[in-house]
C-alpha cells in the first residue's frame, strides 16, 4: 500500500538531501568529488526508476496520505493514463539524466542541478499518480516551482528573466485552473478522477453554459503548461536557456503535465459527453490549430537550433491537444500515441542539440555545416527522429498523425473536420522545413566546404547511448504500433 508513495517520496527526499548536503561547490579535490556526486545521483536516479516501475506493476489500490480539509483528501492512485505518462517520464528522465552526467561537466553547481532533477522526477511521479483534482493541482504547482531552478540554472540575467517568465505564465495558468476547481468543487459529487466525469446532472442542467466557460478557462489555464496559444510565449524563452538535458526533460515530459492535466479535466472531471459539440470544443480546436500552424511557422523562421526545437514543441503539443479536443476514439488514440512519440523524439532532438553544443559550442543552424561528418552517429539519430516528427512511415510520428487525421475526418465537425488534417499536413511540411536543414547541411556541406579541417568529435558514450536508446524506442513505436494502440484502446474505451 505504501509502495505507491515510494516513487514520490524517495526522489523528493533524496533530491532535498542532495541539495542540502552537497551545497558546497566543487573545490579542491574536484574530480574525485564530482565522481562521487555523479555516482550518488546516478544510483538515486536508477533506484527511483526501479521504484516507479515496481509501483506501476504492483500498487493497485489508492492511498490517501492526509486530508487538506475534510472534503479535500490528498490521494494517490494508479490508472492506465497515469501509467502511460509515468512510463514516458521514467524513460526520458533516466536517459536525459545519464546524458547530463556527461553534459553538466561544463556547467557550474552540478549538485544543485541533480537535486532539482530528482525533485522534478518525484513530483512528476506524484502528478501521474494523483488520484483527484486537488492532489493534481498541488503537484502541478510544485512541478512549476521545482522545475524553475532547472530553467534558471546558469544564473545569467537572461536565464533568470526566462525563469520568471515561466513562473508567471505558469502561475497565471494555474490560477485560472484553480478558479475552475473552486467551481467544480461546489458543483460535483467528488473531485476524484472518474472516467466519464463527475458532474452532478442537476448542476449541468442549471449551470450548463457557465460550466462550459469554466471548462474553457481551465483548459486555457492548464494549456499554459502545454504551450497552447495564446499563452505559449514562455515556452520558447524558457526551454532553450536551460542546460540541454534539462530542456529535453522540459520539452519532452514536463510540458506533458499540461497535457495530462487537460486529459484529466476533460475526460475524468467534465466528461467528453458534456463537452462534445459545444462552442467550447470548437473554440478549443481552433486554438490548437492556430498553435500548430503558428508554432511551425515560428520554428521555421528561427535561426537558433534550441529555440527552433522549442517552437517545434509548441506546435507538436497542440497536435496532441487537437487529438484530445476532437474527442472521438481514433483522435484520442492518436493524441495519446503522440504523447509517447513526441516525448521520445523531442528528448532526442534536444539531447542532440546538447551534444552539438557540448562538443562544438555551436548554437545556430547555419553554423552547422558539415556537422554530420564530424558527429555522424548523433546526426543520424537526429535525422531518424526528425523523419518521425515530420510523420514519414514507418516511424512513430506517422502512426499518431494518421490516427489524428482520420479521427478528425470522421468526427463530423463542420469545416474543422477537413481543416484539421489540412493544417496537420501543412505543418508537417513546415516541420520538414525546419528540421531537415541540419541534416542536409550536416551531411552535404556543399562543394566549397573545406574537408581538411574536419575532425571526428563524436561525444562520449554517456551521451550517445541515451540518444540511441530513445531513437530506437521512437522507431519501435512506429514498427509495432499495435502493442501500444491496444493498450490505448483500453484507456480510450473507458473514458469515452
Amino acid at each position, binding site marked *: 500500500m505504501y509502495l505507491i508513495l515510494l516513487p514520490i517520496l524517495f526522489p523528493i527526499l533524496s533530491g532535498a538531501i542532495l541539495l542540502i548536503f552537497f*551545497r558546497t561547490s566543487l573545490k579542491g579535490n574536484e574530480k574525485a568529488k564530482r565522481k562521487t556526486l555523479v555516482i550518488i545521483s546516478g544510483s538515486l536516479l536508477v533506484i527511483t526508476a526501479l521504484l516507479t516501475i515496481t509501483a506501476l506493476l504492483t500498487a493497485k489500490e489508492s492511498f490517501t496520505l492526509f486530508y487538506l480539509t475534510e472534503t479535500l483528501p490528498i490521494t494517490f492512485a494508479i490508472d492506465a493514463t497515469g501509467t502511460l505518462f509515468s512510463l514516458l517520464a521514467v524513460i526520458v528522465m533516466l536517459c536525459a539524466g545519464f546524458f547530463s552526467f556527461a553534459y553538466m561537466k561544463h556547467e557550474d553547481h552540478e549538485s544543485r542541478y541533480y537535486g532539482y532533477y530528482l525533485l522534478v522526477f518525484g513530483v512528476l511521479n506524484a502528478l501521474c499518480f494523483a488520484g483527484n483534482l486537488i492532489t493534481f493541482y*498541488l503537484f502541478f504547482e510544485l512541478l512549476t516551482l521545482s522545475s524553475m531552478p532547472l530553467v534558471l540554472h546558469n544564473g545569467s540575467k537572461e536565464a533568470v528573466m526566462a525563469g520568471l517568465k515561466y513562473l508567471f505564465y505558469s502561475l497565471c495558468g494555474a490560477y485560472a485552473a484553480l*478558479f475552475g476547481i*473552486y467551481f467544480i468543487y*461546489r458543483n460535483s459529487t467528488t473531485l476524484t478522477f472518474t472516467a466519464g466525469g463527475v458532474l452532478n446532472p442537476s448542476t449541468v442542467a442549471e449551470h450548463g453554459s457557465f460550466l462550459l466557460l469554466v471548462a474553457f478557462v481551465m483548459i486555457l489555464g492548464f494549456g499554459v503548461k502545454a504551450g497552447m496559444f495564446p499563452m505559449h510565449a514562455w515556452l520558447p524563452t524558457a526551454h532553450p536557456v536551460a542546460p540541454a538535458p534539462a530542456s529535453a526533460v522540459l520539452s519532452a515530459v514536463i510540458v506533458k503535465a499540461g497535457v495530462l492535466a487537460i486529459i484529466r479535466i476533460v475526460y475524468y472531471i467534465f466528461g467528453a459527453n458534456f463537452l462534445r459539440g459545444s462552442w467550447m470544443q470548437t473554440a478549443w480546436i481552433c486554438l490548437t490549430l492556430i498553435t500548430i500552424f503558428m508554432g511551425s511557422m515560428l520554428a521555421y523562421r528561427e535561426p537558433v537550433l534550441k529555440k527552433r526545437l522549442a517552437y517545434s514543441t509548441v506546435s507538436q503539443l497542440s497536435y496532441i491537444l487537437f487529438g484530445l479536443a476532437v474527442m472521438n476514439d481514433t483522435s484520442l488514440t492518436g493524441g495519446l500515441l503522440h504523447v509517447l512519440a513526441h516525448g521520445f523524439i523531442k528528448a532526442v532532438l534536444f539531447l542532440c542539440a546538447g551534444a552539438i553544443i557540448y562538443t562544438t559550442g555551436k548554437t545556430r543552424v547555419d553554423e552547422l555545416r558539415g556537422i554530420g561528418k564530424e558527429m555522424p552517429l548523433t546526426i543520424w539519430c537526429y535525422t531518424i527522429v526528425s523523419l518521425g516528427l515530420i510523420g514519414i512511415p514507418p516511424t512513430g510520428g506517422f502512426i499518431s498523425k494518421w490516427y489524428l487525421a482520420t479521427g478528425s475526418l470522421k468526427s463530423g465537425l463542420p469545416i474543422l473536420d477537413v481543416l484539421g488534417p489540412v493544417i496537420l499536413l501543412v505543418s508537417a511540411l513546415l516541420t520538414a522545413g525546419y528540421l531537415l536543414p541540419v541534416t542536409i547541411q550536416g551531411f552535404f556541406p556543399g562543394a566549397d566546404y573545406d574537408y581538411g579541417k574536419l575532425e571526428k568529435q563524436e561525444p562520449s558514450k554517456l551521451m550517445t547511448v541515451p540518444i540511441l536508446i530513445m531513437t530506437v524506442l521512437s522507431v519501435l513505436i512506429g514498427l509495432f504500433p499495435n502493442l501500444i494502440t491496444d493498450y490505448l484502446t483500453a484507456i480510450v474505451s473507458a473514458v469515452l
Partner: protein
Amino acid sequence: MNFICNFPFFSILLSLFSGTVCSMLPAKAAKVVNRVVIITVGILSAILLLYLLSTGEPFVYWMGHFPAPWGNEIRAGVLEAGMALFFCIIMYLSMAGGAHKLYGEVVESKHNLYYILVNLLLCSLLALVYTNDMFTAYVFVEINTISACGLIMIRQVGRTIEAAVRYMIMSLLGSGLLLFGLCIMYDLTGHLLMSNIKESVSLLVANGEYQIPLIVSVALMCVGLCIKSALFPFHAWLPDAYGYSTVSSAAILSSLVSKGYIFLLIKIIYRVIGFDIFNSTRIIDVLFVFGLMGMIFGSISAIRENDIRRMIAFSSVAQIGYIYMGFGMGTQAGMVASIFHILSHAATKSLLFIAAIGLTDVSNGSRKFIDLTGAAYRNKWAGAAFMAGSLSMVGVPLFSGFISKLLFSQAAVQVEGKMLASLIVLGISTVLNAIYFMKTVIRIYTPVKESSYSGITFREMKGYAVVLVCFIVLNVILGVSSQPVVNMIEQGLAMFA
C-alpha cells in the same frame, strides 16, 4: 462559576501588572518576566480554549459586582480564547526571533522599557479580544496605540520617530472616529455593553427608527478601525513603521496590532450591530471595494519597492485587503475565510520579517536587493524560512496561504454579485504576490562568485533558527490540517450570536 472562568481576567491583569513590575527590574530580568508572562498567558488561554470547547457555551464574567446594564463585563468564547492563544504564540516567537537585534538597535538602558511596552501591548490586545464593553474597548484601543507607537520609536533613528508620528496621527484619527461613532451609538441605545446595544439596535431596526444616525455611527466605527488597521487608502504610515522599527516590533505590529483592531471590528459586526443588519447596509460594499483595491495597489507598491523590509510591509497592505474583502462578501463563509486569513497572515508575515532580518544581517545590514544576492547561502535557515513564507504568501498548497485563498474563493463562489470581481482580483493579486516574492527568493538564492560578506553558522544562531523552524511548522500546520481550525472559527462565530 468555574475557576477557569477567571482566566481571561487573570491574563489581562497579569500582563498589565508585569508591565509595571518590569519598569523596576534590570533588562535581563525584565526579559525573563516578559517571556514568562507571555507563556503563562498562552497556557491560560489554551486551558480556557479547551474548557470552552468541552462546554460549548460562551460565558460572561462580571468585572465588579454590578449586573448587565451597569457593570463592566468580560466575555469569552472559543474564538476569543483561540485568538488569545494564537496572539501569545506569535508574540513569543516574534520576541524570541528578534531578541538578538534588540541589542544592536536599542540602547541597553531602554531594554526594560521595551518589555514594558510589549507587556502593555499584550494586555491591551487581550482586553480588546475579551471585553464586552464598548468604552473599555476604546480605552484599550488607545493603550494599544500608545504602546505600538512606543514599539516603533524604541529604536531611536529619524525614520522611526517620523514613522511613529505618522502612525500616531493616523491612529488618532481612527480612534477619534471610533469614539465618535461609539458616542452616537451610546446616544441611540443608552448602553455600552455589546449585548445590550445589540438588543436595542435590533429593536431600532425593527421599528425603523433613527436609521441615518445608526448608519452614521456604524460607518464611523468601521472607518475608524479601518484606518487603524491600515486598509488601503490609509496605509501611508505603514511601510516606514514596519520597515525601520526593530524587527520584533515590526513582526508584532504587522501580525498582531492590526489584527487586534480587525478582531474588534468583527466583534462589533457580530456582537454590537448584528451580522445581518450590518450586511444589509452598503458599508460592506465599501469595505469590499477598498479591500480589492488594497489587494492590488499594495502588491503594486511592493513590486516597486527596492527594500526588502518595506516590500514585506507593503505586502501587509495587500493582505489586509484580503481580510476586508472577506468582510465585504457579507457571508458567514467570507467571515470564516477572513478570520482564517488573520491567523495565516499573522503566522506568515512575522515569519517573513524575522527571516528578512537574518538575510540583511549577513549582507552588512543592507536591505537593498542588490546586496541581498546570495544571502540565502550565507544564512541558510533564514533563506529557507523566507522561501517558505513566500510560498505561503503566493498560495502554494501545503502552506497556510493556500487554505485562506481556497476559503476566500469558496466564499466568493457563493456570492452571486461579487463572485467574478473577487475571483479575478484574487487571481491578479496572487500573480502580483508571486512576482515580488519569487523575485526576492530567486535573488537571495542567486549565487555570487566573490562574496565580501561573511556567513553565519547554525551555532551562532541556535535560538533564531529554532524560532524560524517553529514559524514554518506553524504555517504548515495551518496549511495541512486546517479543518479543525476552521471548525473552531465556525464554532466561535456561532457563539458570537
